[in-house]
């Protein structure tokens, strides 16, 4: 193999660390995806655009002179209400319908979001400077931006917080009950409409956190939302709904895959590799499932 990465072991360490830290961020977005998919049975194509919008909120703070790290607190609060409003406007009409309708409707929402962000924030690639500096490891051969470590830590903290919230709080219990059986929950006095709105809001808030972290670790652009949607979709398929450890692990796996694909195939094929991985995973899953139902034949 004539690839640079196999010649230099330090590059491999670099790619692995980058991949794992990035993967934790992906897992956070995927957890939101799993939440809404499990509870409301919708697939949200606009997920990635919610992430980018959250990122732009942090970026706006940065432009206003506030440190963008505060975005991880402000952005989810704003995004929660954006999600709530989005639910009241559109999503509540697609909840009980065919999944394809939700895909197409959220695709429309994604286009609107992209364009509005394009108008408001411009079509340039932007990044919010956190000024956290970098950590040098292994004799200066591996560089690790502190902002990436920061983002991974924040993601883990929020994820733990959310899990505890879902276990202990009344709303969390209501959400889990609705996910198990919406009708039964309704009979037992759960206001499912409110639960749905809250779920979508929480999902949007998670996107907001992830977006704020992306604004300081990676770059923002109005049209890069869809890859985030696809990544989270992939993670959810591999990990299953409502299995947080699996989501975290497959998120990190995806991060690793991407970093290595970046080195081996070249950066121009990075997004292409992500989408091809999606196709591959779906096809693999299909053959695995078809083996299971072989006795029918």
């Amino acid at each position, binding site marked *: 193999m004539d690839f640079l990465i196999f010649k230099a072991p330090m590059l491999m360490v670099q790619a692995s660390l980058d991949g794992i830290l990035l993967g934790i961020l992906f897992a956070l977005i995927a957890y939101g995806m799993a939440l809404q998919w499990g509870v409301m049975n919708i*697939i949200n194509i606009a997920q990635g655009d919610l992430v980018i919008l959250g990122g732009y909120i942090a970026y706006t703070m940065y432009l206003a002179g506030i440190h963008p790290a505060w975005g991880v607190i402000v952005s989810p609060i704003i995004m929660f209400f954006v999600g709530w409003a989005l639910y009241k406007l*559109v999503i509540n*009409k*697609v909840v009980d*319908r065919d*999944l*394809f*309708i939700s*895909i*197409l*409707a959220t*695709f*429309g*929402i*994604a*286009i*609107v*979001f*992209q*364009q*509005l962000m394009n*108008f408001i924030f411009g079509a340039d690639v932007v990044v919010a400077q956190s000024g956290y500096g970098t950590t040098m490891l292994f004799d200066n051969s591996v560089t690790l931006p502190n902002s990436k470590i920061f983002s991974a830590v924040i993601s883990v903290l929020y994820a733990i917080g959310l899990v505890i919230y879902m276990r202990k709080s009344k709303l969390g219990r209501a959400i889990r009950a609705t996910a198990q059986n919406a009708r039964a929950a309704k009979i037992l006095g759960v206001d499912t409409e409110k639960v749905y709105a809250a779920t979508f809001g929480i999902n949007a808030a998670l996107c907001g956190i992830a977006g704020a972290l992306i604004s300081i670790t990676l770059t923002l652009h109005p049209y890069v939302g*869809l890859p985030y949607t*696809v990544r989270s*979709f992939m993670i959810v*398929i591999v990990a299953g709904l409502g299995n947080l450890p699996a989501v975290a692990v497959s998120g990190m796996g995806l991060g690793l895959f991407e970093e290595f694909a970046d080195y081996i195939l*070249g950066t*121009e*094929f990075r*997004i*292409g590799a992500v*989408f*091809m991985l*999606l*196709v591959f995973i*779906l*096809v693999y*899953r*299909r*053959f695995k499932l*078809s083996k299971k139902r072989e006795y029918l034949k």
Partner: protein
Amino acid sequence: MNALKQKDLILYSGLIILGLAAPFLFSAFKVQLTYLCVLIVLAMTWNLQGGEMGYNSFGNILFYGLGMYLTSSVQVGMFFPLAEWTESGGEKTFVHTTAQYFQGIGVGLLVAAIIPTIVAGAIGYAILGLRGHYFAICTLGLGIAAGEIAGGIEIIGAGQGFTTPPFPAEIIDPEARGQFFYFLSFVVLVLAFVFVKYIYGSRFRLILNAIRDNEDKAEAMGIQTMKYKIVGWMCSAFFCGLAGGIMGGLIGYIDSTDVAFDGREMGVFMVLMAILGGKGTLWGPIIGATLFHFLKEGLWTFILGWQYVALGVLIVVIVVYFPEGLMGWLREKYPERFGEVIDEKDRKAQVELK
């Protein structure tokens, strides 16, 4: 029955005459009319597997883009080295003669129809095993992956695009180019219509409908669903490839993600047009495409810059409020016109239940 057939005959001959006369009547709108023909073809063939088979694909753009790249590559590659052509300015060094141009585009379109069909057949077994939304997302991924990958391949111009051969300069008539592409697309449209109409009268359509309504039951009834699903998708791919080839020549420039594998525009348009008109009907996609095209061309210029926002809102509104489309709405309103007999008592009883 005879009278109906006569009515049909008048309708079809009227439409064909209109189609043939259109480029002379509306000489200024030839390019728009060509677009319309291509859009109708895309909507109609998307409807074959989206509406009739129930496999909602976002990825037919894959075949469209493939057809576009293939036509132009063949057209260039038959006479000149392709790699040198796609390097910047190559199209100025090499010039197609009139005969070469038409030979090239003819062979190119043939290849553009056949290769996507084969590709659809080859990946069909793997992809069509996916059900429902998994299929939709998978095809969405396929379309975008194709665009990203095509944008990294040097020989077809990579990120900087691919200039398709210009129309031969020896033909001086300024109208000729528009007319040529219009009639090309019109022929494809007629072909597609005849083909789809034939399918609508055949057992094949019933099988596709059975797959849509309940695939497991259809399988239990002894239908080899996979075989028919693949054939259904191949039919779509065939016409998507042709449509892409024509559009490549018409636009004159191929970009990997903005023109060829344009999931954000063409890929969504074909789904939207079919849904707007009514999935699973013969005329629905045609009406939907026409309406959509007029709407788009009429509105786009007034809301310049906001057209994508309008498109997004349009998608949401159509999908959320009119999932049955125009034909579905008409069908509910005038069921007699669709040959359905409604029991009045039954209808009233249902209304009361609501």
